[in-house]
Structure formats: C-alpha cells, structure tokens
C-alpha cells in the first residue's frame, strides 16, 4: 500500500498515491487536462506540452508538464489559467500550421480560440507527438520506425526491411496518429522502398 499524497487541483482536495503524476491524479478525480503525446501504455514523454498546468507556491507560480510531474504533498494545481490557456493556444496554432484538419486539434482549437491560419501552412503534417515511434518500440517492440535528424528537420521514418516484415500484421500504431501522417508515410514507404522479390 503506497503512501497517500494530498494535493489540490482546481480548488478540489484530491487524494493520490505516491509515484502518481499530476495528470494521473487529475484523471482519477475526473478532472480533464488536454493531452496529445500521452498514452496510458507508454512512458510519459513531455513533448507536446499541451498538458502543462500551473503550480502555485504562495506568491509565485510555475508551469509544469503534468504527465511527468510527480504529485507532492500540499501541491496547489490550476489546470486552467490565463498563462495555461495562452500557452495551449500558442501550441495549438503552431501545430495547426502542420495539420489544420486533424480532428483532435480542431476540437481543441475551438475550446482555446486558436486560429488555424495564424502561421503559414507547412508541407509536412506530422506534429511529432511521437506516439507511433514509441508504441512500436515499447509495446509492439518491433522498432520498425523511428525518428531521424533533429530540430526543424526532424522526421519519422519507417525502416523498409523491418516494416515489410512486420507492419501489415500489426498496424497497432495507426489508430494513434492524430493527423493520419503516419498512414500516409506508410503507404509511401510501402510503394517506394519495401524490398521486392523477397530480398
């Protein structure tokens, strides 16, 4: 039986267990925090920053990523605030430049008043949530696709030899992609790069 931690989320007193993240504690209490790169079967990643919440320490506050931050005794958490909402709006507008038609993003955009045309459209609609890569590594354990390069040139890439053998029987990552970029990338690599004639 692990130690109980008492914290406050949006004015409500919550009891959580030691080792839980703020996100898990919020979920267990039925409090909604938007996420993109979080998945209950995968290690928390902290990449999309959408789940950021504001912690209050007397006079000053701090923004932290709730899917990674562990609960602490006496923590005061605000899942919505001027700062939090502004941050989420900014993130959404940056992502909408890549995938303006993603259902997940458009729903959140409406909630936070994000403008899909704020930034010039980008050719790639991958938003780098990393769900596909991490699912394949941690759950399917096939390592058929991965990240390549870094910064603004970062991309996901299938490894043709492995994908040709494993993907058609699995496709466990397909439902996870918020933008369908994954499916498009798969179709491309299948038609252009899969080994032919059993090579």
């Amino acid at each position, binding site marked *: 039986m692990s130690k109980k931690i008492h914290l406050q989320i949006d004015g409500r007193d919550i009891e959580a267990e030691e080792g839980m993240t703020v996100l898990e504690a919020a979920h267990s209490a039925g409090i909604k925090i938007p996420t993109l790169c979080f998945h209950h079967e995968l290690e928390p990643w902290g990449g999309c920053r959408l789940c950021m919440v504001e912690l209050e320490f007397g006079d000053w506050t701090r923004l932290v990523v709730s899917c990674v931050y562990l609960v602490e005794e006496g923590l005061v958490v605000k899942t919505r605030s001027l700062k939090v909402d502004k941050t989420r709006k900014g993130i959404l507008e940056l992502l909408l430049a890549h995938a303006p038609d993603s259902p997940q993003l458009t729903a959140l955009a409406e909630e936070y008043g994000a403008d899909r045309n704020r930034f010039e459209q980008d050719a790639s609609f991958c938003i780098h949530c990393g769900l596909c*890569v991490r699912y*394949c*590594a941690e759950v399917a354990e096939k*390592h*058929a*696709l*991965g*990240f*390549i*390069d*870094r910064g603004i040139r970062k991309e996901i*890439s299938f*490894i043709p030899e*492995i994908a040709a053998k494993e993907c058609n029987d699995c496709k466990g990552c397909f439902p996870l992609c918020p933008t369908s970029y994954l499916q498009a990338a798969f179709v491309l690599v299948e038609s252009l790069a899969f080994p032919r004639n059993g090579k």
Partner: protein
Amino acid sequence: MEAERIDQIIDEHQGAPDLLIQVLLAIQSEYNWLPKAALQRVGEKMQVPLSRILHIATFYNAFSLVPKGRHKVHICMGTACHVRGAPRILDTVQDLTGIGAGETDLEFKFSLETVNCIGCCALGPVIDIDGKIHGNVSTRDTADILEQYD
C-alpha cells in the same frame, strides 16, 4: 567494408551499448561514411535496434550516411566568424565549388559542410580543410586556398 573490421571496432569498445556513439565515430573515421551494412552489423552485435542507430546517425553532425569527398571543407559559422563575414565566405566557396553546404561534388573531390564553431574564434573567419585550419580568410583568398587541393 569488411564485417571483420566492424566486429573488431565493436570489440574494442567491449560491445557496450552506451559506447554506441563512440563505435559509430570510429567507423565514420575509418570509412569516411557509415555504410548501411556496417550499421546492420552494429545493430546485430551490440543488440540495439536499427531505429536507434539511424536516429543517432542522423541526429549528430559527425556522421554521414553517404560517402564523403576526398577533402572535407568545413566553414565555421560561429558567432565570431559570422560577425567577421563568414556567410560571404560560404557563398564564395559555394560559387567556386558548385556545391552547397552538406553536399559532395560529382568527382568526390570536395565535401562542403558548415560547422557551428571550431573553437578558433580569434582567427575568424575560419575554414578547416582536412584538419588544417586556414584563419583570417577573406573572399579573395578562397580561390587560392581551394586550388591547393587536388
């Protein structure tokens, strides 16, 4: 590329996965690039997924997945060099060689790269060719410098 030599390099690093980057640096240094077959061998022997190796091979500037030219021309684009006119040097070198940063010419003579600081800031602008540092370079010197190499 002999599989034996790759195995040797891996053994020199005890096949330890945390030494993966050191192994790849040794292979890059020896072959001037990272052949795919070498990466597959590394993956097998060191028990790491190819996806991780490819991420590393593309994440870091030191590695190349395609063969490089005989002469590696590195132009420093650090702040000190930038302020002293490095972008103009880059333009001139690109004009003279016909290739852009990150490219290799058709005869595999020059590979051109930009580097985000070589550490010779007092000598800026700096061009490093095959480890030899040319300092205080001006646009009119570049043609003469490149002519020294065949």
